[in-house]
Protein backbone atom coordinates (compact mmCIF):
# COMPACT_ATOMS: atom_id res chain seq x y z
CA UNK A 1 0.00 0.00 0.00
CA UNK A 2 1.16 3.52 -0.79
CA UNK A 3 -0.07 6.77 0.67
CA UNK A 4 0.01 9.69 -1.74
CA UNK A 5 -0.72 13.34 -1.00
CA UNK A 6 -1.26 15.54 -4.05
CA UNK A 7 -1.19 19.35 -3.85
CA UNK A 8 -2.96 19.36 -0.51
CA UNK A 9 -4.19 22.73 0.76
CA UNK A 10 -6.00 23.83 3.86
CA UNK A 11 -7.06 27.41 4.46
CA UNK A 12 -8.78 28.65 7.63
CA UNK A 13 -9.85 32.28 7.95
CA UNK A 14 -7.76 33.26 4.92
CA UNK A 15 -4.69 31.69 6.47
CA UNK A 16 -2.71 28.92 4.88
CA UNK A 17 -2.46 26.03 7.31
CA UNK A 18 -1.21 23.63 4.64
CA UNK A 19 0.14 24.92 1.35
CA UNK A 20 0.52 22.80 -1.77
CA UNK A 21 1.77 19.75 0.07
CA UNK A 22 2.68 16.64 -1.95
CA UNK A 23 4.56 13.52 -0.95
CA UNK A 24 4.43 9.74 -1.08
CA UNK A 25 4.90 7.20 1.67
CA UNK A 26 5.67 3.71 0.41
CA UNK A 27 4.78 0.29 1.66
CA UNK A 28 6.48 -0.37 5.00
CA UNK A 29 8.15 3.00 5.02
CA UNK A 30 8.14 5.39 7.95
CA UNK A 31 8.09 9.04 6.98
CA UNK A 32 8.63 11.62 9.71
CA UNK A 33 6.93 15.00 9.49
CA UNK A 34 9.33 17.33 11.21
CA UNK A 35 9.01 21.01 12.01
CA UNK A 36 8.53 23.56 14.76
CA UNK A 37 5.14 23.87 16.48
CA UNK A 38 2.55 25.47 14.23
CA UNK A 39 4.25 24.34 11.02
CA UNK A 40 1.28 22.22 9.97
CA UNK A 41 2.55 18.73 10.73
CA UNK A 42 -0.36 17.76 12.99
CA UNK A 43 -2.81 19.42 10.57
CA UNK A 44 -1.41 17.25 7.78
CA UNK A 45 -1.97 14.17 9.90
CA UNK A 46 -5.58 15.21 10.59
CA UNK A 47 -6.19 15.64 6.86
CA UNK A 48 -4.84 12.16 6.14
CA UNK A 49 -7.01 10.75 8.94
CA UNK A 50 -10.07 12.54 7.57
CA UNK A 51 -10.70 14.45 10.81
CA UNK A 52 -10.41 17.70 8.83
CA UNK A 53 -11.33 18.39 5.21
CA UNK A 54 -8.73 19.83 2.83
CA UNK A 55 -9.56 23.05 0.99
CA UNK A 56 -7.98 21.57 -2.14
CA UNK A 57 -5.92 18.65 -3.33
CA UNK A 58 -6.36 14.92 -2.88
CA UNK A 59 -5.20 11.97 -0.84
CA UNK A 60 -4.76 8.52 -2.30
CA UNK A 61 -4.19 5.09 -0.88
CA UNK A 62 -2.76 3.20 -3.83
CA UNK A 63 -5.03 4.07 -6.76
CA UNK A 64 -8.02 4.92 -4.54
CA UNK A 65 -8.89 8.58 -3.94
CA UNK A 66 -9.93 8.73 -0.27
CA UNK A 67 -10.30 12.52 -0.03
CA UNK A 68 -14.08 12.35 0.26
CA UNK A 69 -14.26 9.15 2.32
CA UNK A 70 -15.26 9.75 5.94
CA UNK A 71 -12.78 9.25 8.79
CA UNK A 72 -14.65 6.20 10.08
CA UNK A 73 -14.34 4.38 6.74
CA UNK A 74 -10.72 5.19 5.96
CA UNK A 75 -9.21 2.36 8.01
CA UNK A 76 -6.57 4.53 9.63
CA UNK A 77 -4.69 3.48 12.75
CA UNK A 78 -3.81 6.59 14.69
CA UNK A 79 -1.92 7.14 17.92
CA UNK A 80 -2.82 10.50 19.44
CA UNK A 81 -0.40 12.66 21.35
CA UNK A 82 -2.67 12.38 24.41
CA UNK A 83 -3.26 8.68 23.54
CA UNK A 84 -7.03 9.43 23.75
CA UNK A 85 -7.82 6.32 25.78
CA UNK A 86 -11.41 6.06 27.04
CA UNK A 87 -10.97 6.97 30.73
CA UNK A 88 -14.07 5.12 31.97
CA UNK A 89 -13.16 1.77 30.40
CA UNK A 90 -10.62 -0.89 31.32
CA UNK A 91 -7.77 -1.66 28.91
CA UNK A 92 -9.72 -4.68 27.67
CA UNK A 93 -12.85 -2.64 27.01
CA UNK A 94 -10.85 0.20 25.51
CA UNK A 95 -9.57 -2.22 22.89
CA UNK A 96 -12.89 -4.01 22.38
CA UNK A 97 -15.01 -0.90 21.90
CA UNK A 98 -13.90 -0.27 18.33
CA UNK A 99 -14.46 -3.89 17.31
CA UNK A 100 -17.88 -3.79 18.93
CA UNK A 101 -18.69 -0.58 17.06
CA UNK A 102 -17.70 -2.30 13.80
CA UNK A 103 -19.97 -5.20 14.83
CA UNK A 104 -17.39 -8.00 14.71
CA UNK A 105 -18.65 -11.32 16.12
CA UNK A 106 -18.01 -11.72 19.87
CA UNK A 107 -15.58 -14.64 19.54
CA UNK A 108 -13.52 -12.81 16.93
CA UNK A 109 -13.43 -9.72 19.16
CA UNK A 110 -12.05 -11.76 22.01
CA UNK A 111 -9.41 -13.53 19.92
CA UNK A 112 -8.14 -10.37 18.31
CA UNK A 113 -8.00 -8.32 21.50
CA UNK A 114 -6.21 -11.02 23.47
CA UNK A 115 -3.69 -11.68 20.73
CA UNK A 116 -2.87 -7.96 20.51
CA UNK A 117 -2.70 -7.77 24.32
CA UNK A 118 -0.13 -10.54 24.26
CA UNK A 119 1.91 -8.91 21.46
CA UNK A 120 1.99 -5.71 23.49
CA UNK A 121 2.65 -7.57 26.76
CA UNK A 122 -0.42 -6.00 28.31
CA UNK A 123 -2.26 -9.14 29.46
CA UNK A 124 -1.63 -8.41 33.14
CA UNK A 125 -3.15 -4.95 32.76
CA UNK A 126 -6.34 -5.95 30.91
CA UNK A 127 -8.62 -5.02 33.80
CA UNK A 128 -6.89 -1.73 34.68
CA UNK A 129 -8.25 1.71 33.87
CA UNK A 130 -6.00 4.06 31.85
CA UNK A 131 -5.46 6.22 34.95
CA UNK A 132 -3.86 3.21 36.65
CA UNK A 133 -1.21 2.78 33.93
CA UNK A 134 2.21 4.35 33.43
CA UNK A 135 2.94 6.56 30.43
CA UNK A 136 4.69 3.77 28.58
CA UNK A 137 1.82 1.35 29.20
CA UNK A 138 -0.72 3.90 27.99
CA UNK A 139 1.28 4.32 24.81
CA UNK A 140 1.21 0.56 24.30
CA UNK A 141 -2.57 0.49 24.75
CA UNK A 142 -2.96 3.32 22.22
CA UNK A 143 -0.72 1.41 19.81
CA UNK A 144 -2.64 -1.82 20.45
CA UNK A 145 -5.84 -0.02 19.51
CA UNK A 146 -4.25 1.18 16.26
CA UNK A 147 -3.07 -2.37 15.48
CA UNK A 148 -6.58 -3.72 16.06
CA UNK A 149 -7.92 -1.39 13.41
CA UNK A 150 -5.93 -3.45 10.86
CA UNK A 151 -5.31 -0.17 9.08
CA UNK A 152 -4.16 0.81 5.61
CA UNK A 153 -1.99 3.55 7.07
CA UNK A 154 -0.52 4.27 10.50
CA UNK A 155 -0.47 7.83 11.78
CA UNK A 156 1.46 8.70 14.92
CA UNK A 157 1.16 12.16 16.43
CA UNK A 158 4.12 12.82 18.73
CA UNK A 159 3.63 9.46 20.45
CA UNK A 160 6.71 9.94 22.63
CA UNK A 161 6.11 13.45 23.88
CA UNK A 162 4.44 12.33 27.12
CA UNK A 163 7.31 10.04 28.10
CA UNK A 164 10.54 10.92 29.87
CA UNK A 165 13.73 11.16 27.83
CA UNK A 166 15.23 7.85 28.90
CA UNK A 167 12.07 5.84 28.21
CA UNK A 168 11.74 7.54 24.84
CA UNK A 169 15.13 6.26 23.70
CA UNK A 170 14.41 2.78 25.05
CA UNK A 171 11.07 2.52 23.28
CA UNK A 172 12.17 3.73 19.83
CA UNK A 173 13.42 0.41 18.37
CA UNK A 174 10.41 -1.47 19.76
CA UNK A 175 7.92 1.04 18.42
CA UNK A 176 9.65 1.09 15.03
CA UNK A 177 9.58 -2.69 14.82
CA UNK A 178 5.88 -2.85 15.75
CA UNK A 179 4.57 -0.22 13.37
CA UNK A 180 6.64 -1.43 10.45
CA UNK A 181 5.89 -5.12 10.96
CA UNK A 182 2.58 -4.92 9.11
CA UNK A 183 4.10 -3.38 5.97
CA UNK A 184 1.80 -0.34 5.87
CA UNK A 185 3.00 3.20 5.24
CA UNK A 186 3.62 5.09 8.49
CA UNK A 187 3.51 8.84 9.02
CA UNK A 188 5.21 9.93 12.20
CA UNK A 189 4.86 13.49 13.47
CA UNK A 190 7.53 14.90 15.74
CA UNK A 191 9.30 18.15 16.51
CA UNK A 192 12.41 16.31 17.69
CA UNK A 193 14.95 15.87 14.88
CA UNK A 194 16.81 13.16 16.74
CA UNK A 195 13.60 11.14 17.11
CA UNK A 196 12.76 11.71 13.45
CA UNK A 197 16.15 10.37 12.40
CA UNK A 198 15.84 7.36 14.68
CA UNK A 199 12.31 6.42 13.62
CA UNK A 200 12.06 7.31 9.97
CA UNK A 201 13.78 6.32 6.77
CA UNK A 202 12.80 9.66 5.24
CA UNK A 203 12.00 13.00 6.79
CA UNK A 204 9.75 15.76 5.46
CA UNK A 205 10.59 19.13 6.96
CA UNK A 206 7.61 21.49 7.13
CA UNK A 207 7.67 25.23 7.65
CA UNK A 208 4.59 27.48 7.70
CA UNK A 209 2.48 24.76 6.14
CA UNK A 210 4.80 24.19 3.17
CA UNK A 211 7.19 21.37 2.46
CA UNK A 212 10.76 22.65 2.78
CA UNK A 213 12.51 19.43 1.88
CA UNK A 214 11.92 15.70 1.88
CA UNK A 215 14.70 13.14 1.94
CA UNK A 216 16.78 10.71 3.97
CA UNK A 217 18.27 12.07 7.21
CA UNK A 218 21.66 12.03 5.51
CA UNK A 219 20.43 14.10 2.56
CA UNK A 220 18.85 16.67 4.86
CA UNK A 221 22.03 16.95 6.85
CA UNK A 222 24.59 17.04 4.07
CA UNK A 223 22.62 18.89 1.43
CA UNK A 224 19.90 21.06 2.99
CA UNK A 225 17.87 22.71 0.24
CA UNK A 226 17.05 25.77 2.33
CA UNK A 227 18.47 27.79 5.18
CA UNK A 228 15.49 26.71 7.30
CA UNK A 229 16.37 23.02 6.91
CA UNK A 230 20.06 23.72 7.47
CA UNK A 231 19.23 25.44 10.75
CA UNK A 232 16.66 22.85 11.82
CA UNK A 233 18.72 19.72 11.18
CA UNK A 234 22.01 19.17 12.98
CA UNK A 235 23.07 19.95 16.54
CA UNK A 236 24.85 22.18 17.50
CA UNK A 237 23.20 24.52 15.04
CA UNK A 238 24.89 25.48 11.79
CA UNK A 239 26.90 28.75 11.73
CA UNK A 240 25.74 31.55 9.49
CA UNK A 241 28.74 33.64 8.49
CA UNK A 242 28.50 37.37 8.60
CA UNK A 243 30.48 38.07 5.40
CA UNK A 244 28.46 40.82 3.74
CA UNK A 245 28.30 39.04 0.39
CA UNK A 246 25.17 38.71 -1.76
CA UNK A 247 24.50 35.18 -0.52
CA UNK A 248 24.26 33.43 2.82
CA UNK A 249 27.18 31.18 3.67
CA UNK A 250 26.74 28.58 6.40
CA UNK A 251 29.17 26.09 7.87
CA UNK A 252 28.49 23.32 10.38
CA UNK A 253 30.37 23.46 13.73
CA UNK A 254 31.76 19.97 13.13
CA UNK A 255 33.28 20.99 9.75
CA UNK A 256 35.47 23.72 11.27
CA UNK A 257 39.12 22.90 12.05
CA UNK A 258 41.94 24.57 13.88
CA UNK A 259 44.21 25.83 11.08
CA UNK A 260 47.40 27.79 11.16
CA UNK A 261 47.14 31.09 9.38
CA UNK A 262 43.36 30.91 9.37
CA UNK A 263 40.72 33.25 10.77
CA UNK A 264 41.64 34.81 14.09
CA UNK A 265 39.17 34.10 16.92
CA UNK A 266 38.70 34.72 20.58
CA UNK A 267 37.12 32.09 22.86
CA UNK A 268 33.90 33.38 24.43
CA UNK A 269 32.37 30.26 25.87
CA UNK A 270 33.27 26.60 26.26
CA UNK A 271 30.85 23.69 26.75
CA UNK A 272 31.65 20.03 27.51
CA UNK A 273 29.51 17.53 25.65
CA UNK A 274 31.30 14.31 26.63
CA UNK A 275 33.13 13.05 23.57
CA UNK A 276 33.20 16.56 22.15
CA UNK A 277 33.45 20.11 23.34
CA UNK A 278 31.77 23.15 21.89
CA UNK A 279 33.61 26.42 21.56
CA UNK A 280 31.90 29.69 20.92
CA UNK A 281 34.30 31.96 19.13
CA UNK A 282 34.22 35.64 18.34
CA UNK A 283 35.60 36.42 14.86
CA UNK A 284 35.30 38.85 11.96
CA UNK A 285 32.47 36.58 10.69
CA UNK A 286 30.50 37.02 13.90
CA UNK A 287 29.92 34.41 16.57
CA UNK A 288 31.03 30.95 15.41
CA UNK A 289 30.29 27.60 17.05
CA UNK A 290 33.02 25.02 16.65
CA UNK A 291 32.99 21.36 17.65
CA UNK A 292 36.28 19.83 18.84
CA UNK A 293 37.46 16.57 20.36
CA UNK A 294 37.24 16.95 24.11
CA UNK A 295 40.95 16.23 24.72
CA UNK A 296 42.14 19.28 22.76
CA UNK A 297 43.47 22.13 24.89
CA UNK A 298 42.60 25.69 24.01
CA UNK A 299 45.62 27.15 22.15
CA UNK A 300 46.87 30.65 22.93
CA UNK A 301 45.97 32.01 19.52
CA UNK A 302 42.95 30.38 17.97
CA UNK A 303 42.97 30.38 14.19
CA UNK A 304 40.35 28.38 12.32
CA UNK A 305 39.45 27.34 8.79
CA UNK A 306 37.38 24.85 6.78
CA UNK A 307 37.29 23.21 3.39
CA UNK A 308 35.29 25.35 0.99
CA UNK A 309 33.40 22.23 -0.21
CA UNK A 310 31.84 22.00 3.26
CA UNK A 311 30.24 25.41 2.90
CA UNK A 312 26.51 25.70 2.25
CA UNK A 313 25.36 28.66 0.15
CA UNK A 314 21.85 30.04 0.24
CA UNK A 315 20.15 32.87 -1.62
CA UNK A 316 19.81 36.03 0.44
CA UNK A 317 16.31 36.63 -0.97
CA UNK A 318 14.62 33.23 -0.91
CA UNK A 319 16.82 31.30 1.51
CA UNK A 320 17.04 28.52 -1.09
CA UNK A 321 20.23 26.58 -1.76
CA UNK A 322 22.59 27.83 -4.46
CA UNK A 323 24.99 25.31 -6.19
Amino acid at each position, binding site marked *: MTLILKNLNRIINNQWIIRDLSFEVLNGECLALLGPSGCGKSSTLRLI*AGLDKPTGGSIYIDQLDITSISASDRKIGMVFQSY*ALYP*HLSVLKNLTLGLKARKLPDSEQKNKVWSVLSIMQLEDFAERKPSELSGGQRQRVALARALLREPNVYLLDEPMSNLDAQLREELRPELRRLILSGGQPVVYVTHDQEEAMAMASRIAVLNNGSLEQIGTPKELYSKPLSLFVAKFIGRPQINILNNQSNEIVAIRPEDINLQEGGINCKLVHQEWLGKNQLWQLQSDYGLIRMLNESDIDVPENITIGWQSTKEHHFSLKTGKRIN
Partner: protein
Amino acid sequence: MIFLFAPAALFLILVFVLPLIRYCWISVHALSVITNLEMIPNYGANWIRLYNDQRFWQDSFQTIRFTVTSVSLEILFAIAIALLLDQRWRGRGVVRALTILPWALPTTVMALGWRWIFNTPHGPIEQIISLLGFESINILSNPNIAWIATVIGDVWKTTPFIALILLAGLQSIPNDLYEAFRLEGGSSRQALFNITIPLLKQYLLIGILFRTAQAFGVFDLIQIMTGGGPASSTESLALYAYLNAMRFLDFGYSATIMLGSFILLVFSCLLAWLIFNQIKKIQL
Protein backbone atom coordinates in the same frame (compact mmCIF):
# COMPACT_ATOMS: atom_id res chain seq x y z
CA MET B 1 -9.35 22.06 62.61
CA ILE B 2 -12.43 22.28 64.79
CA PHE B 3 -12.12 26.04 64.68
CA LEU B 4 -12.31 25.99 60.87
CA PHE B 5 -15.15 23.50 60.76
CA ALA B 6 -17.24 25.12 63.52
CA PRO B 7 -19.08 27.89 61.61
CA ALA B 8 -20.40 25.46 58.96
CA ALA B 9 -21.32 22.88 61.59
CA LEU B 10 -23.09 25.49 63.70
CA PHE B 11 -25.03 26.67 60.67
CA LEU B 12 -26.09 23.12 59.78
CA ILE B 13 -27.15 22.41 63.36
CA LEU B 14 -29.17 25.61 63.65
CA VAL B 15 -30.86 25.40 60.26
CA PHE B 16 -31.29 21.65 59.73
CA VAL B 17 -30.70 19.51 62.80
CA LEU B 18 -32.50 21.55 65.46
CA PRO B 19 -35.67 22.15 63.40
CA LEU B 20 -35.76 18.47 62.47
CA ILE B 21 -35.51 17.42 66.12
CA ARG B 22 -38.16 19.95 67.05
CA TYR B 23 -40.40 18.62 64.25
CA CYS B 24 -40.03 15.11 65.63
CA TRP B 25 -40.92 16.39 69.09
CA ILE B 26 -43.92 18.37 67.89
CA SER B 27 -45.22 15.45 65.81
CA VAL B 28 -45.89 13.40 68.94
CA HIS B 29 -47.85 16.26 70.53
CA ALA B 30 -51.14 17.93 69.95
CA LEU B 31 -50.30 21.54 69.16
CA SER B 32 -53.08 23.56 67.59
CA VAL B 33 -55.53 26.36 68.10
CA ILE B 34 -57.77 23.87 69.97
CA THR B 35 -55.07 23.21 72.59
CA ASN B 36 -54.55 26.97 72.91
CA LEU B 37 -51.17 26.42 71.22
CA GLU B 38 -50.04 24.38 74.24
CA MET B 39 -48.02 21.21 73.60
CA ILE B 40 -50.00 18.23 74.90
CA PRO B 41 -48.50 14.77 74.39
CA ASN B 42 -50.80 12.58 72.31
CA TYR B 43 -48.53 9.54 71.93
CA GLY B 44 -48.51 8.96 68.16
CA ALA B 45 -52.11 9.96 67.48
CA ASN B 46 -50.82 12.31 64.73
CA TRP B 47 -49.04 9.43 63.02
CA ILE B 48 -52.11 7.20 63.15
CA ARG B 49 -54.12 10.05 61.70
CA LEU B 50 -51.53 10.47 58.96
CA TYR B 51 -51.64 6.78 58.14
CA ASN B 52 -55.43 6.92 57.78
CA ASP B 53 -55.47 10.26 55.97
CA GLN B 54 -56.70 9.71 52.39
CA ARG B 55 -55.64 13.21 51.42
CA PHE B 56 -52.05 12.61 52.57
CA TRP B 57 -51.73 9.51 50.38
CA GLN B 58 -53.43 11.26 47.48
CA ASP B 59 -50.98 14.18 47.81
CA SER B 60 -48.04 11.77 48.11
CA PHE B 61 -49.08 10.18 44.84
CA GLN B 62 -49.47 13.60 43.22
CA THR B 63 -46.10 14.80 44.53
CA ILE B 64 -44.33 11.69 43.27
CA ARG B 65 -46.15 11.96 39.93
CA PHE B 66 -45.07 15.60 39.65
CA THR B 67 -41.48 14.81 40.63
CA VAL B 68 -40.97 11.81 38.36
CA THR B 69 -42.58 13.47 35.33
CA SER B 70 -40.78 16.79 35.77
CA VAL B 71 -37.36 15.37 36.50
CA SER B 72 -37.49 12.82 33.63
CA LEU B 73 -38.58 15.44 31.11
CA GLU B 74 -36.04 17.91 32.42
CA ILE B 75 -33.21 15.39 32.08
CA LEU B 76 -34.21 14.49 28.52
CA PHE B 77 -34.57 18.10 27.40
CA ALA B 78 -31.42 19.11 29.25
CA ILE B 79 -29.36 16.41 27.49
CA ALA B 80 -30.66 17.62 24.14
CA ILE B 81 -30.01 21.29 24.94
CA ALA B 82 -26.56 20.59 26.37
CA LEU B 83 -25.59 18.53 23.29
CA LEU B 84 -26.80 21.35 21.04
CA LEU B 85 -24.98 24.05 23.00
CA ASP B 86 -21.81 21.94 22.98
CA GLN B 87 -21.67 22.13 19.18
CA ARG B 88 -20.09 25.10 17.46
CA TRP B 89 -22.51 27.29 15.55
CA ARG B 90 -23.17 30.93 14.87
CA GLY B 91 -25.09 32.68 17.64
CA ARG B 92 -24.40 29.97 20.21
CA GLY B 93 -23.33 32.50 22.84
CA VAL B 94 -26.60 34.40 22.58
CA VAL B 95 -28.70 31.25 22.75
CA ARG B 96 -26.71 29.99 25.73
CA ALA B 97 -27.41 33.22 27.59
CA LEU B 98 -31.11 33.06 26.66
CA THR B 99 -31.34 29.46 27.86
CA ILE B 100 -30.39 30.46 31.38
CA LEU B 101 -33.08 33.14 31.49
CA PRO B 102 -36.02 31.01 32.76
CA TRP B 103 -33.88 29.76 35.59
CA ALA B 104 -32.83 33.28 36.54
CA LEU B 105 -36.47 34.44 36.82
CA PRO B 106 -38.07 34.34 40.30
CA THR B 107 -40.50 31.42 40.52
CA THR B 108 -43.36 33.66 41.60
CA VAL B 109 -42.97 35.84 38.50
CA MET B 110 -42.82 32.99 36.05
CA ALA B 111 -45.62 31.06 37.83
CA LEU B 112 -47.88 34.10 37.41
CA GLY B 113 -46.87 34.15 33.75
CA TRP B 114 -47.83 30.52 33.28
CA ARG B 115 -51.13 31.06 35.14
CA TRP B 116 -51.98 33.71 32.57
CA ILE B 117 -50.84 31.58 29.65
CA PHE B 118 -53.22 28.81 30.81
CA ASN B 119 -56.00 31.23 31.81
CA THR B 120 -59.51 30.56 30.52
CA PRO B 121 -60.81 32.30 28.44
CA HIS B 122 -58.18 35.07 28.13
CA GLY B 123 -54.89 33.13 27.98
CA PRO B 124 -53.14 32.57 24.62
CA ILE B 125 -53.58 28.80 24.69
CA GLU B 126 -57.35 29.03 25.07
CA GLN B 127 -57.42 31.79 22.46
CA ILE B 128 -55.59 29.60 19.95
CA ILE B 129 -57.88 26.66 20.76
CA SER B 130 -60.99 28.76 20.20
CA LEU B 131 -59.53 30.31 17.03
CA LEU B 132 -58.99 26.81 15.67
CA GLY B 133 -62.62 26.12 16.48
CA PHE B 134 -62.07 23.55 19.22
CA GLU B 135 -63.94 23.41 22.49
CA SER B 136 -62.32 25.05 25.51
CA ILE B 137 -60.31 22.60 27.63
CA ASN B 138 -60.09 24.72 30.79
CA ILE B 139 -56.63 23.43 31.63
CA LEU B 140 -56.25 24.87 35.13
CA SER B 141 -59.77 23.96 36.25
CA ASN B 142 -59.76 20.41 34.95
CA PRO B 143 -58.71 18.04 37.78
CA ASN B 144 -57.42 15.49 35.26
CA ILE B 145 -54.97 17.69 33.42
CA ALA B 146 -54.20 20.70 35.65
CA TRP B 147 -51.14 18.88 37.06
CA ILE B 148 -49.69 18.71 33.56
CA ALA B 149 -49.71 22.50 33.43
CA THR B 150 -47.70 22.64 36.65
CA VAL B 151 -45.23 20.13 35.20
CA ILE B 152 -44.85 22.30 32.10
CA GLY B 153 -44.10 25.33 34.27
CA ASP B 154 -41.55 23.42 36.32
CA VAL B 155 -39.84 21.87 33.28
CA TRP B 156 -39.60 25.27 31.61
CA LYS B 157 -38.02 26.79 34.67
CA THR B 158 -35.50 24.17 35.75
CA THR B 159 -34.38 22.49 32.51
CA PRO B 160 -31.75 25.23 31.99
CA PHE B 161 -30.25 24.44 35.38
CA ILE B 162 -29.64 20.78 34.49
CA ALA B 163 -28.62 21.71 30.95
CA LEU B 164 -25.93 23.96 32.41
CA ILE B 165 -24.59 21.22 34.68
CA LEU B 166 -24.55 18.77 31.75
CA LEU B 167 -22.93 21.31 29.44
CA ALA B 168 -20.09 21.73 31.93
CA GLY B 169 -19.77 17.95 31.93
CA LEU B 170 -19.77 17.71 28.13
CA GLN B 171 -17.09 20.34 27.82
CA SER B 172 -14.85 18.38 30.14
CA ILE B 173 -14.76 15.45 27.67
CA PRO B 174 -11.70 15.78 25.41
CA ASN B 175 -12.45 15.92 21.70
CA ASP B 176 -9.66 13.39 21.09
CA LEU B 177 -11.86 10.62 22.43
CA TYR B 178 -14.54 11.23 19.80
CA GLU B 179 -11.96 11.47 17.04
CA ALA B 180 -10.25 8.28 18.14
CA PHE B 181 -13.63 6.53 18.22
CA ARG B 182 -14.51 7.83 14.76
CA LEU B 183 -11.24 6.49 13.36
CA GLU B 184 -12.14 3.12 14.86
CA GLY B 185 -15.24 3.11 12.71
CA GLY B 186 -17.72 4.23 15.38
CA SER B 187 -20.84 6.20 14.49
CA SER B 188 -21.91 9.33 16.34
CA ARG B 189 -24.87 7.47 17.85
CA GLN B 190 -22.49 4.85 19.25
CA ALA B 191 -20.24 7.63 20.56
CA LEU B 192 -23.22 9.12 22.42
CA PHE B 193 -23.98 5.87 24.25
CA ASN B 194 -20.40 4.65 24.75
CA ILE B 195 -18.49 7.84 25.46
CA THR B 196 -20.72 10.83 26.16
CA ILE B 197 -23.33 9.35 28.48
CA PRO B 198 -20.94 7.20 30.56
CA LEU B 199 -18.64 10.18 31.05
CA LEU B 200 -21.62 12.39 31.90
CA LYS B 201 -22.94 10.04 34.55
CA GLN B 202 -21.60 11.93 37.56
CA TYR B 203 -23.16 15.09 36.24
CA LEU B 204 -26.45 13.31 35.54
CA LEU B 205 -26.44 11.90 39.06
CA ILE B 206 -25.95 15.34 40.59
CA GLY B 207 -28.73 16.75 38.41
CA ILE B 208 -31.20 13.95 39.15
CA LEU B 209 -30.66 13.88 42.91
CA PHE B 210 -30.69 17.65 43.25
CA ARG B 211 -33.83 18.09 41.18
CA THR B 212 -35.64 15.14 42.77
CA ALA B 213 -35.20 16.62 46.22
CA GLN B 214 -36.22 20.06 44.97
CA ALA B 215 -39.28 18.95 42.96
CA PHE B 216 -40.47 16.82 45.87
CA GLY B 217 -40.72 19.90 48.05
CA VAL B 218 -42.46 21.99 45.37
CA PHE B 219 -44.53 24.76 46.88
CA ASP B 220 -44.34 28.24 45.33
CA LEU B 221 -44.99 27.24 41.72
CA ILE B 222 -48.14 25.26 42.56
CA GLN B 223 -49.35 27.69 45.20
CA ILE B 224 -49.38 30.46 42.59
CA MET B 225 -50.47 28.52 39.49
CA THR B 226 -53.37 26.55 41.00
CA GLY B 227 -53.27 26.93 44.79
CA GLY B 228 -53.34 23.11 44.90
CA GLY B 229 -56.70 22.95 43.12
CA PRO B 230 -58.95 22.14 41.41
CA ALA B 231 -60.29 19.73 44.05
CA SER B 232 -56.74 19.49 45.48
CA SER B 233 -55.74 17.62 42.32
CA THR B 234 -52.42 19.46 42.06
CA GLU B 235 -51.76 19.70 45.79
CA SER B 236 -48.26 18.67 46.88
CA LEU B 237 -47.24 17.47 50.34
CA ALA B 238 -45.59 20.80 51.09
CA LEU B 239 -48.82 22.57 50.20
CA TYR B 240 -50.85 20.25 52.44
CA ALA B 241 -48.50 20.83 55.37
CA TYR B 242 -48.68 24.57 54.78
CA LEU B 243 -52.48 24.37 54.73
CA ASN B 244 -52.61 22.54 58.07
CA ALA B 245 -50.22 24.92 59.76
CA MET B 246 -51.32 28.24 58.31
CA ARG B 247 -55.03 27.79 57.71
CA PHE B 248 -56.10 25.16 60.23
CA LEU B 249 -53.40 26.24 62.72
CA ASP B 250 -52.75 22.56 63.48
CA PHE B 251 -48.98 22.62 63.94
CA GLY B 252 -48.71 19.15 65.43
CA TYR B 253 -50.27 17.49 62.41
CA SER B 254 -48.42 19.77 59.96
CA ALA B 255 -45.10 18.70 61.45
CA THR B 256 -46.17 15.07 61.09
CA ILE B 257 -46.97 15.60 57.38
CA MET B 258 -43.57 17.19 56.80
CA LEU B 259 -41.78 14.31 58.52
CA GLY B 260 -43.88 11.79 56.59
CA SER B 261 -42.97 13.44 53.31
CA PHE B 262 -39.33 13.56 54.41
CA ILE B 263 -39.35 9.80 54.82
CA LEU B 264 -41.01 9.44 51.39
CA LEU B 265 -38.35 11.69 49.89
CA VAL B 266 -35.54 9.53 51.23
CA PHE B 267 -37.23 6.54 49.62
CA SER B 268 -37.70 8.45 46.37
CA CYS B 269 -34.03 9.39 46.24
CA LEU B 270 -33.11 5.74 46.79
CA LEU B 271 -35.46 4.85 43.96
CA ALA B 272 -33.94 7.51 41.69
CA TRP B 273 -30.50 6.14 42.48
CA LEU B 274 -31.59 2.60 41.60
CA ILE B 275 -33.13 3.74 38.32
CA PHE B 276 -29.94 5.61 37.58
CA ASN B 277 -27.85 2.51 38.12
CA GLN B 278 -30.00 0.72 35.56
CA ILE B 279 -29.50 3.52 33.01
CA LYS B 280 -25.76 3.24 33.56
CA LYS B 281 -25.78 -0.35 32.29
CA ILE B 282 -27.25 0.53 28.89
CA GLN B 283 -24.66 0.12 26.14
CA LEU B 284 -24.71 0.42 22.37
